[in-house]
């Protein structure tokens, strides 16, 4: 089962950046989307249950950069232990629906524009600093 958040308005930003520096634009968008996925993964990881001895699930929730296409960049949040879905949907040994992925997603949803813009600003500043350094300024 796949669900997600779609952010609108990025198309215009991408269009402007794409016109002046296409390669940088795509890298910037990719880094931004990946960072948003990283924040979502961190939030899901905090909400995930852990046994006293383990923590495999908490450690196993990670963002993954996806291939996307010519006009789209994509990242997903994945949990590597196979039993994540049993705990997420209440099929685990405790029978409790932990809904840690859903909670993380819902928590981010109202703030997605702020999260996205902050992350974008951070990544843009970092990219400009790198370019300045490369140019020797």
């Amino acid at each position, binding site marked *: 089962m796949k669900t997600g958040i779609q952010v609108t308005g990025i198309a215009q930003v991408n269009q402007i950046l794409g016109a002046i520096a296409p390669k940088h634009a795509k890298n910037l968008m990719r880094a931004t989307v990946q960072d948003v996925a990283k924040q979502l993964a961190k939030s899901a990881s905090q909400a995930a249950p852990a046994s006293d001895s383990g923590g495999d699930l908490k450690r196993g929730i990670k963002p993954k950069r996806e291939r996307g296409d010519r006009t789209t960049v994509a990242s997903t949040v994945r949990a590597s232990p196979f039993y994540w879905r049993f705990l997420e949907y209440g*099929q685990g040994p405790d029978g409790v629906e932990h*809904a840690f992925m859903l909670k993380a997603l819902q928590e981010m949803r*109202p703030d997605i524009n702020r999260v996205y813009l902050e992350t974008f600003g951070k990544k843009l500043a970092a990219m400009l600093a790198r370019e300045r350094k490369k140019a020797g300024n």
Partner: protein
Amino acid sequence: MAAEFEVQKALYAAINGLGYVCYDAAPQAADGGSAASFPYVEIGAIVMVEFDTAYETGFDFVARIHTRSRSGAMKETKDIQGAIYARLHRGTLAVTGYNTILIQREASDVTRVSDGSFHGVCEYRGLIEYAG
């Protein structure tokens, strides 16, 4: 009454109206097994976040609807999911004290459980605003 409860009540009424057995939490037998009458629908996690504007208050929620069946195939589960979809998707939900702006299905899945039964999960996203 809390919006969480009102949403659950509205979902319960909508699903019950379709003629399916609907539980808040499925009953358990003394031996730890299920005492529920299959097939049944269970209202699972409802995660709500604020959906406030300058003048209105409201909630953005996702509700999980679980469908459980002991039929020999997935069809029964899918039929129930389909009936719930027809009732709820872009339909109306009577949430006491709130106006429903939107309710729509966002995801749907069916898996086989280790005891041989089928477990369907649908996620419905809704937006409600305070009617007061």
